[in-house]
């Protein structure tokens, strides 16, 4: 490849040379000049719609959006003259003018990009007072709610939904002052092709998208003396929750998390990681069956596709229904934990299952939808999971309760659903389910422990991986994808029969659960979905894994005990009844 052409320019009188095609904003970044921005996101296409990032370019008759204008030879850029600062401030003030004045009561208060921008620009007074838009909010969604009055039309949600997730559920409707963002025909979220991943919530600079709150019902359950309130926390919570309390990103916080949950008043604190271990044992058994390795041959087609990510399952049902037989029938770890809590645990502790209230703390908003699915109800008619809190909701509850998280002592998860292997921990990051499955399957195939524990080749940090892994006599063709646009690449190959995969892991969110739609808003000056932030969260999980003696799911004594005393063998009828589920095509059908 020939080296790209070099362009010389000056930024605030400082000369520099950059590659041709570099934008003004990128060039500024080289000099440590931070141009304020709103609609811009490095992982999304350029919109240039907010105009907050304007700069002065000598001899140009108008200000230019630095995010979308490439530099040219001899360009002279001025980023911080009084005029340009005034113009940017005016733009932000005009955005504020058409925005509710309810910062103090807004979910995003203190973590709102618009609010931070207004402050940093020096907006201290409201100069403009004009007509303000009003659209009906949609709070009907099981997972995602929409408040268009908060929307500033930056279009990031539209782009993340289309470009990262390949869902194209959102669009701008109408024009001018009447423009509103929403699904086709502004249908309720759950009647649209929304897959409930919540990435729109993550990328929204304000609070135009939020999760459906479950905090009210959880407070109520905790205050109810009749209920035995249990909680489970997903692997990726411990990798991210510290950020909500000013701890450095990537601080592992399992122990403090347990203590915080106990202080909130939960009667038992369980580890979803144990259910992840159960998922692995069941899924590896299912996989080997599909591979024709064991007597359960012919149980389902290859490739087998993992089923832990509820956003992915929604995508499967709406966008790729013909691949439903390929999805593992295993419930997600959340589903398995909730089922076990209301059967195995209830029996063991002689508690009426109807009196158990199960709260799941998840990095995910789609889990709220999953919990409400009829397939995840007990035959007696109650849901196995009663409420799902996102990491964000839990952070707020902890603060609200007056708990100073960073100072908490380390706690331990409760028996009998509190012991987990490192394989369970790494579920929270891309490739984790695959790696955990391979750790388990290697021994199941060969009959002796695998020669290695780490399968770094399946960690799809860049979003998409295809590789071969030797399992005994099988050379297993593995695909791993996170972000559904990436997943489409693999799924289309399966549909077209182009490549014969054996097993595919799909996680709906970029980076896996660590980048989930329910994870903390990023610290100030960190952009959402920042690969560095995701890498730090992933590292926290790998650190926890490496620090454990127990690193393979099938070695987990709690898992063994559950099979011996309750379920029988992996893949048994009882295991199928409690730990497996089914899927079906859903409408409206998505366009892929």
């Amino acid at each position, binding site marked *: 490849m020939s080296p790209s052409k070099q362009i010389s320019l000056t930024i605030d009188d400082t000369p520099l040379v950059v590659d041709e095609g570099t934008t003004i904003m990128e060039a500024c970044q080289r000099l440590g000049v931070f141009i304020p921005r709103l609609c811009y996101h490095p992982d999304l296409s350029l919109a240039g719609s907010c105009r907050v990032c304007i700069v002065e370019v000598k001899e140009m008759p108008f200000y230019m959006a630095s995010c979308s204008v490439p530099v040219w030879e001899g360009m002279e850029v001025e980023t911080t003259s009084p005029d340009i600062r005034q113009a940017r401030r005016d733009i932000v003030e005009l955005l504020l003018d058409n925005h509710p004045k309810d910062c103090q009561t807004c979910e995003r208060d203190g973590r709102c990009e618009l609010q931070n921008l207004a402050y940093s620009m020096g907006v201290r007074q409201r100069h403009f007072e004009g007509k303000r838009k009003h659209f009906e909010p949609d709070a009907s969604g099981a997972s995602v709610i929409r408040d268009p009055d908060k929307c500033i039309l930056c279009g990031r949600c539209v782009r993340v939904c*289309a470009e990262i997730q390949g869902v194209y*559920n959102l669009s701008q409707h109408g*024009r001018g002052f009447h423009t509103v963002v929403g699904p*086709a025909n502004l249908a309720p979220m759950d009647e649209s092709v929304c897959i409930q991943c919540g990435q729109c919530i993550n990328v929204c600079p304000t609070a135009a998208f939020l999760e459906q709150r479950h905090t009210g019902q959880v407070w109520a359950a905790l205050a109810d003396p009749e209920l035995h309130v249990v909680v489970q926390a997903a692997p990726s919570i411990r990798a991210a929750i510290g950020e909500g309390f000013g701890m450095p990103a990537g601080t592992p916080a399992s122990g403090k998390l347990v203590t915080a949950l106990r202080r909130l008043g939960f009667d038992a604190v369980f580890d979803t990681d144990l259910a992840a271990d159960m998922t692995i044992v069941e899924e590896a058994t299912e996989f080997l069956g599909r591979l024709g390795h064991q007597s359960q041959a012919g149980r389902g087609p290859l490739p087998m596709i993992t089923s832990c990510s509820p956003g992915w399952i929604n995508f499967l049902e709406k966008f790729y*229904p*013909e691949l439903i037989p390929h999805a593992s029938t295993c419930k997600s770890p959340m589903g398995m934990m909730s089922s076990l809590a209301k059967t195995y645990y209830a029996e063991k502790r002689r508690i009426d299952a109807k009196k158990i209230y199960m709260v799941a703390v998840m990095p995910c908003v789609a889990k709220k939808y999953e919990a409400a699915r009829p397939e995840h109800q007990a035959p007696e008619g109650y849901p196995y999971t009663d409420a799902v809190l996102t990491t964000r909701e839990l952070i707020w509850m902890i603060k609200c309760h007056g708990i100073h998280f960073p100072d908490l002592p380390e706690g331990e998860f409760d028996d009998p659903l509190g012991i987990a292997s490192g394989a369970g921990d790494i579920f929270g990051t891309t490739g984790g389910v695959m790696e955990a499955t391979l750790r388990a399957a290697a021994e199941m195939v060969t009959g002796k422990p695998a020669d290695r524990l780490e399968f770094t080749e399946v960690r799809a940090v860049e979003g998409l991986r295809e590789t071969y892994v030797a399992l005994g006599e099988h050379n297993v063709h593995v695909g791993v994808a996170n972000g559904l646009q990436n997943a489409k690449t693999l799924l289309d190959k399966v549909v077209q029969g182009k490549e014969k995969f054996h097993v595919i892991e799909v996680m709906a969110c970029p980076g896996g659960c660590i980048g989930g739609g329910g994870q903390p808003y990023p610290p100030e000056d960190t952009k959402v979905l920042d690969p560095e932030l995701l890498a730090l969260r992933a590292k926290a999980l790998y650190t926890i894994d490496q620090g454990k003696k127990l690193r393979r799911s099938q070695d987990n004594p709690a898992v063994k005990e559950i099979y011996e005393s309750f379920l029988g063998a992996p893949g048994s009828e009882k295991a199928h009844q409690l730990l497996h589920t089914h899927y*079906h095509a859903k409408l409206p*059908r998505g366009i892929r």
Partner: protein
Amino acid sequence: MSTTTDNWHEVRAAACEKLPDEIVAMIEECRRGPQPDSRLIAVLHRVQAHFGYLGDEQLRAVAQLMQIPAAKVAGVASFYHFFRLKPRGKHMINVCLGTACYVKGADRVAQRLMEELGIAWSETSSDGIFTLEGSRCLGTCGLAPVVMVDDEIYGNVTPDDVPILLEKYLKQARQEATEKPARV
């Protein structure tokens, strides 16, 4: 085995049911040609010509058959002024809001129309007979203020003319309503 969970045939059949055959055929022709997405607006014009407006169901059907995300189709349909998303009345009332008409009191005429019909701009009366729109200059400034009902021009309209004007069309509608059952 994997075909059993695929609902494409039902989805396609349901979409075809919502559109007349010639539009389905047109879409199929677009799909065979280059850049079918670029024909979306042409298809929407045809749908509107057939139904008089673009209903939610028709938009969803177009999305499925053209394989363009429904949000995108709805976004295009709602962006352009020409596309109507609601059924329109039997008669279209256009009040000229050009400068001459406005100066001569078009706003008062429009106000009276809204009061008489109980609707705002771009709305349709509850009996489904009238839809009210404002228009740019109709080029008959000598008659200002001008109101156009369907293709008929009414000049020098005063607010007090409004009930008489409406009654003309209401009477016509009543007659049609009484004649129709007789023919059945």
